[in-house]
């Protein structure tokens, strides 16, 4: 998916962009409202991530601008302010959701998914590989005629696999991506989810192969 990140803090921006790109997304970065407005007008973004505190003005100005031009791109605000009054006013101004810094990427990802889902019923980015259609926003897998609704963790694993079909993902890597840092689970839970995915893929040209001590890989038969 294509994201626009409006953030003036370079360190943070780099970190976010790096993470998102490693997830397989395209990210554009603007560090001023002025640039942000320009970018948003030219580019077609799936989602905009907006930092409220910007050097040439309050991020709310961008929101007002954005909505005034009837742009329907969902905006998720990144804010360090946790006052309830601030949050409410952001939503009133047209933000679809917000995350407070420092944030968990998994949470951000989940909120993006939800915002996209709300925004358009039918997803614009369905990934098709062989005879499988994967809708990352809706979280569904279409194998042949049947549409399977994936669980969240299944969905996230599959998203990783399908975006890099030749890559082997280690259990740890998958674990680190999936589980929150305070979850009391063992890495073997990954096996459970892989197992489920394998079940869903039965009858399709795709399968997940295990490479001992290396990890899992989505194979195209």
């Amino acid at each position, binding site marked *: 998916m294509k994201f626009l990140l409006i953030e003036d*803090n370079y*360190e*943070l921006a780099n*970190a*976010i962009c*790096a*993470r998102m790109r*490693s997830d397989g997304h395209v990210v554009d970065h603007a560090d001023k409202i002025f640039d942000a407005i320009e970018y948003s007008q030219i580019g077609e973004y799936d989602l905009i991530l907006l930092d409220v*505190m910007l050097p040439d003005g309050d991020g709310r100005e961008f929101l007002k601008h954005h909505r005034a031009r009837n742009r329907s791109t969902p905006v998720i605000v*990144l804010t*360090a*302010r*946790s*006052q*309830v*009054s*601030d949050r409410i006013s952001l939503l009133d101004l047209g933000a679809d*959701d917000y995350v*407070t*810094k*420092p*944030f*968990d*990427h*998994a*949470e951000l990802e*989940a*909120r993006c*998914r*939800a915002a996209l889902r709300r925004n358009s019923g039918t997803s614009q980015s369905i990934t098709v590989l062989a005879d499988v259609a994967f809708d990352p926003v809706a979280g569904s897998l279409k194998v042949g005629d049947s549409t399977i609704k994936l*669980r*969240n*963790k299944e969905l996230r694993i599959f998203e990783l696999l399908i975006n890099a079909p030749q890559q082997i993902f280690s259990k*740890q*890597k998958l674990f*680190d*991506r999936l589980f*929150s*840092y*305070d*979850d*009391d689970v063992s890495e073997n839970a990954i096996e459970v989810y892989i197992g489920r995915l394998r079940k869903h893929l039965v009858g399709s040209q795709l399968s997940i192969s295990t490479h001992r001590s290396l990890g899992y890989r989505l194979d195209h038969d």
Partner: protein
Amino acid sequence: MIEGVKISGSLRNRLTVSLIGGAAVLALLMYFIVRAYATQIAQQGQDNILGASVNSILDAANVSEGFIDVDFPYASFSMLGTDTDDRVFYAIYQDDELLSGYDGLAQIFPEVDKGSAYGNTTFKGAPVRLASASRMLVGADLRVQLTVTVAQTQDSLLGALNRIGRNVAIFGAGFFLLVVILAFWATSTAIGPLAQLTTSVARRGPQDLSPVASPVPREMAPLVFSLNKLMARLEYSLSRSEDFIAEAAHRVRTPLATVRSHAEATLLRVDKEENRQAMRSMIRAIDESSRAAGQLLDHAMITFRADNLDQKNIDLVELVQDLAMRLSPIAEMRDIELQLDALGPVSVIGDAILLQNAIRNLVDNALKYAPSESIVRLVVATTPKPSISVVDEGAGFPVGEINLLPDRFARGSNSGGIIGSGLGLTIAQEVAEAHGGGLTLNNHSRGGACVTFSF
């Protein structure tokens, strides 16, 4: 209502006492003035009669054959009769010689042919009022000064004065009583605007630092002006504090966000197990501290707000619905389903912001402790009291610790690796109590915990 305020005296008492004191002084003054005036008038009355008596005697004097004859009429003395039978004394002097009358009656030497002089003296053991007049009598070979003095006791005068005094005293007392009543009324009227100001200020919402708009009496204007200035300063300092806190939060959180993002990214790149663990624990630490900071700020805000609840009509079901929607991405992340159980709108009076905060904490807790792929139910009920219950299918509360958990920073023994600062339940309990309700923790019969926030 007025704890912590040092009380010195009372405006009402000051006003009342001054008014009553003033009235008392006036009443006393009036009594003495009237008495003095009455005495003067009454004395004038007696003097007029005494003067007439003296003159009637003096006029009857004539010289015949070298002798003075004073053939005064019956009326001279009969006009001196009083209701108290005052005694009468008189003396007729020819130059210095007593012609007739009482010897020893004091002389006051009036000017000749100039009318009567008056005085007071004592005679035969009684205080008397004197009138005296003098005339030159000229005969063939005689020239004498005739002085006539008539004196009378003053029982009648004193009797009249006492009567007047008594009546004046009664009127004065009645008047005074009236003033006392008036004083209380006037005081209440004067103090009225103060009470009104008090009411209007007390009725303000917790965030209302706007200047007092309603008109006040001129004397209260400086007070209200200072009050408004104080509130403006307070508002300014409060907003500055808020700005400061927000600014501080931003300055602290942005670098933290940077660190966390980098840590997360790094975690994905390291392979060595010990490095992995190090990164994981680093991220956990960051999460804990930022969560702690957030909760502390919230808790401070709640403690302040709880004393001045912004009371409005709220539909609990709507509130829980909004909350559920906001938390659904989190729930989804853990494959937990948020279920709302409610029959219809449930209306309560409370502070929306505080309630949102409290319930959010409870649901956050539930999402943390509930196992993956389970259901967390949010139940809104009206009986026996309006309440919101959060039910999960987790491990439940450790028995024996259930009552201690809402204590600040208490973490259950089952909290294990779960990040939290322990303030979640405390916040929820404080908000519940501020609304006149409470928080109850139970373990479900089918396992899992149930936290009920009731009003």
